[in-house]
């Protein structure tokens, strides 16, 4: 495997995701076993999909929570979608904040749910910022690997 400065940067960045609890090491390692020469862009595609879908889910959650009355069925669906996809790619903090929001929402406290949503949005923005850079670096690193 190549050990260029870019690959070293990728390793360091990946490790920082694990150290900061943004990504689950075990889940990411598992996903990496599914990537090979038949599907070399597997991880990159997954992360790109998550960036796109998670933003959409959070926007829908926000609209549903702001609606009068609150759109419970949309909230329920979007929360499960976000819970599921964040668990699937190992996005631990997003998954954690989603579970917190779900619990608060199910307890019926809408104001606390809105506060919890703000926390989720902050975590998501932080994660997204870093993941976009990481995906960009993955794209750049590809031709020399394969």
């Amino acid at each position, binding site marked *: 495997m190549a050990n260029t400065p870019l690959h070293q940067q990728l390793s360091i960045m990946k490790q920082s995701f694990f150290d900061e609890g943004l990504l689950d090491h075990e*889940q990411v390692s598992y996903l990496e076993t599914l990537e090979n020469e038949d599907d070399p862009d*597997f991880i990159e595609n997954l992360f790109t999909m998550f960036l796109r879908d998670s933003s959409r889910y959070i926007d829908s959650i926000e609209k549903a929570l702001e609606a009068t009355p609150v759109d419970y069925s949309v909230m329920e669906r979007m929360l499960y979608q976000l819970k599921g996809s964040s*668990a*699937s790619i190992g996005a631990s903090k997003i998954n954690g904040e989603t579970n917190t929001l779900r619990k608060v929402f199910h307890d019926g406290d809408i104001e606390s749910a809105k506060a919890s949503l703000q926390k989720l949005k902050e975590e998501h923005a932080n994660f997204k910022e870093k993941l976009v850079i990481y995906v960009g670096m993955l794209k750049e690193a590809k031709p020399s690997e394969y």
Partner: protein
Amino acid sequence: MATHINGSWELGAKMTALVVDDDSINQTIHHRLLEQLGIENQVARNGKEAIDIHCSGKKFDLILMDRDMPIMNGIEATRKLRAMGIRSMIAGVSTRCVKQEIQEFMEAGLDDYQEKPLTSAKIISILRKIHHSGSISY
């Protein structure tokens, strides 16, 4: 085709599976996971698509059925498939962990239930329950 994993598949027809999930990430992961295990598979985006695929005459050894989907959810799709006489192994896949909700899904006609995210080990534990034309041995 025989596919070697920890043990080996008994020789027989290649296994087929249908992934029923509305989430593109889970579709991608489960499709790849099954592919790596040597299981030919396709994806349906919701319960209705799963029904339509079966109505077109296709059959599968294994159906991975997500619970929460738009248009037709996994519970309704499972009930309909069983009512149509589909005897495939149907494994419910969900993030739900409340006993009552799992029970409701099982009662729709599932053979097994697994919590997301799916892994090769979880798929293999499902496949162990399938009585195929040969049997699966490890």
